């Protein structure tokens, strides 16, 4: 049996709108868009012109610092727009899907005969390297640095998170091939949850398997790394989301780039929460329209409620997201004297509210309100309770705010990503924007080091 690590700290937020484990068919979206901002740390250089035809798997932009790293179109079709924002920053590149899809052919591969360099080159060329992130800095991996190890978390513990076992059905072979390919580059650590039974996971070959048990953020790869083999200064590890491992497997087995994800459509404002198959960057108008409650103003999120990105209802699926969440915006709510009311329908970890009376089974409908003003850090031990890492979160946050680079290093900023602080941000009574702070700290450090 694999190593079992039990975590006690953390918090499962029980929200309404969990996706039923059934696949819902959706109309093929007409447009696809890649947002370079999704690929943290990359400086995009667009290599297509508007109205140009691209193949599925053909490059849309490359990284200025590593021109060999390509970011490819999920579908074939005509580039309809390259949208730029302030200072000509590339915001998104949109492709209108052609009726007939043609794929760039990369050739079927026999992974067992490949070496690490060959795998890396193929991934860079086929645009799948873009789905590999690295610690430190939580950015797209630097292909010139050899990683110490590659970590894959096969479960997502975020609120309403998609069930990876469901996405894995029918993709077992591709998943194993993906793992095999990654194992050519460095040792692969696969972390699964104690409740996962799929053979492709529990009997995955060529990987070091670790079983995690406990509340969210047990599924966060950063937490897992911290418990398996923490990142020290000077080391680099890669992290890959499990659906991207399937992308890699498909590339090896079919020779084509197929960026189809199994996406969970979740949230209290979704009429029928279920799964559907969508390609990265898919336009969501047809997916969401008609499936959302119209009574209230809603917030659509690509990703989960803790780390996701706010998108318009006709927005696009983020590159790294296997989940869509729709919750009420809540800006029409004026709660009177909320600071003294029992607020049974509102969720709090604090016993100063009485929602604990409702039991742990209750599913909450939470809106996007912050529910308080931002303050200095007042309470202590709030973050520690939900961060199962050997890190002193309050001190790390303070060091980042102070811009003290030495202190950040000492306190272990190399081990963390903004997502690890998402729960801390949720419980913070001072309503500090911790994920933004951590991101700024990582960027500051990266600028200093590179």
């Amino acid at each position, binding site marked *: 049996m694999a190593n079992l690590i039990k975590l006690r700290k953390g918090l499962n937020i029980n929200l309404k709108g969990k996706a039923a484990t059934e696949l819902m068919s959706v109309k093929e979206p007409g447009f696809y868009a890649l947002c370079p901002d999704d690929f943290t740390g990359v400086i995009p250089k667009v290599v297509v012109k508007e109205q140009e035809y691209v193949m599925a798997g053909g490059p849309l932009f490359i990284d200025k610092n590593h021109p060999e790293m390509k970011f490819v179109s999920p579908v074939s079709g005509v580039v309809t727009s390259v949208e730029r924002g302030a200072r000509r920053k590339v915001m998104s590149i949109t492709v209108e899907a052609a009726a007939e899809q043609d794929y760039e052919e990369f050739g079927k591969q026999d992974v067992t005969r490949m070496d690490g360099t060959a795998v890396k080159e193929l991934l860079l060329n086929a645009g799948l390297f873009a789905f590999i992130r690295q610690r430190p800095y939580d950015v797209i991996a630097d292909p010139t640095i050899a990683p110490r190890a590659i970590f894959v978390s096969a479960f997502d513990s975020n609120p309403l998170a998609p069930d990876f076992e469901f996405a894995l059905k029918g993709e077992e072979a591709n998943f194993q091939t993906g793992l095999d390919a990654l194992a050519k580059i460095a040792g692969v650590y696969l972390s699964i949850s104690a409740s996962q039974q799929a053979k492709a996971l529990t009997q995955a070959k060529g990987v070091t398997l670790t079983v995690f048990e406990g509340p969210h953020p047990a599924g966060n790869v950063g937490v897992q790394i911290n418990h398996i083999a923490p990142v020290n200064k000077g080391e680099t590890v890669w992290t890959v989301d499990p659906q991207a491992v399937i992308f890699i497997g498909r590339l090896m087995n079919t020779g084509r780039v197929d960026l189809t994800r199994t996406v969970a459509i979740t949230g209290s404002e979704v009429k029928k929460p279920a799964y559907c198959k969508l390609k990265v960057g898919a336009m969501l108008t047809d997916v969401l329209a008609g499936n959302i409650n119209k009574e209230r103003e809603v917030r659509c999120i690509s990703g989960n409620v*803790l780390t*996701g990105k*706010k998108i318009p209802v006709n927005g696009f699926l983020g590159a790294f997201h296997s989940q869509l969440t729709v919750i009420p915006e*809540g*800006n029409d709510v004026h709660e009177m004297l909320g600071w003294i009311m029992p607020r049974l329908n509102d969720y709090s970890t604090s016993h100063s509210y009485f929602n604990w009376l409702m039991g742990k089974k209750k599913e909450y409908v939470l809106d996007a309100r912050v529910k308080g003003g931002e303050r200095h850090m007042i309470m202590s*031990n709030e973050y520690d309770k939900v961060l199962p890492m050997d890190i002193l979160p309050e001190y790390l946050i303070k060091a980042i705010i102070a811009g003290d680079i030495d202190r950040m290093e000492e306190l*272990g900023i190399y081990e963390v990503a903004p997502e690890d602080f*998402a729960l801390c941000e949720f419980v913070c009574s001072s309503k500090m924007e911790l994920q933004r702070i951590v991101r700024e700290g990582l960027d500051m450090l990266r600028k200093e080091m590179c």
Partner: protein
Amino acid sequence: MNALRNYLDKIKPNFEEGGKYHAFRSVFEGFETFLFVPNATSKTGTHIHDAIDSKRIMSFVVIALMPALLFGMYNVGYQHFHATGAEGSFIEMFGYGFLAVLPKIIVSYVVGLGIEFIVAQWKKEEIQEGFLVTGMLIPMIVPVDCPLWMLAIATAFSVIFCKEVFGGTGMNVFNPALITRAFLFFAYPTKMSGDTVWVSGDSIFGLGKTVDGLTAATPLGVAKVAECPAFSWDMVTGLIPGSIGETSVIAIAIGAVILLWSGVASWKTMLSVFVGGALMGWVFNTWGPDTAIAHMPWYEHLCLGGFCFGAVFMATDPVTSSRTENGKFVYGFLIGAMAIIIRVLNPGYPEGMMLAILLMNIFAPLIDYVVVQNNISRRAKRAMSNN
């Protein structure tokens, strides 16, 4: 409720930049967020938030203070009627105490919140709730005869120099309520100690009776100059002279339960203060000098003076206490021990809790430093062993 909301929306523009009453923006905002939970939605980071906010936390501390405050009011009346020999019913005693304490609460809040409003306006920030607690603590830790003007000056000093200059709630080094008390204690010692300030000798609106030169010492004061008073249940129920809110162990225990249950205060700090105090009291009982106060049994030490009140409401202040979990044990233990050391070995002051907490406020960052350094060196060692 809707009418009120509409009214607020109607007058809101007046308070915004360029509006007629822009100078009162912070005041308006303070009241608006007090009446309605702000409906601002998250812009970055997590899309949902826990319902807890600092208003809720601070109001829970104030709620936890209520039993001690109400009992303190009653005790002020009880002590007065008792000492002057006047006859009085429960209602009269409470009424007397209420009228004696209320002006202090009002002065403390008006002065403190006034400064907070001005600073918030000046710094273009929201009003911070920290003073809700401080403003309630201040009247509870002074003797009943403390003049209002002194209270006003001390509160102003403390809010400005102990809190706002450091950056407001969350940034202060010392507990502002204790700084208020320390200011009074050292600037006006005759009104803060001795045996004439603890029981009021004036009648208020015809309640009670005026007696000149009324004296009544606190049990700790007695132990300092004469002999150690025997333990009595009045020391637990709180029917003894003392600062307004500090006397009743039972009322403070109710507050402690509220604070611990709601998770606002740390049980680690609270428990270790008592452990430290009890242990040091026992040490003095066994090996101490031959003075009355050193002979005071350890459990009596814990009941008397501001020990309980300080342990429950002051030492647990998250901002000025140790912020690391292991540090909290050390911090609390040293407060308890230090309070008893000051009581026993100091010739001048009968009470040591205030000074002990303020002293440990200074050392809290040092305790944390050790704990944090521990984490840092563990990480460094790990990196060394890997390479």
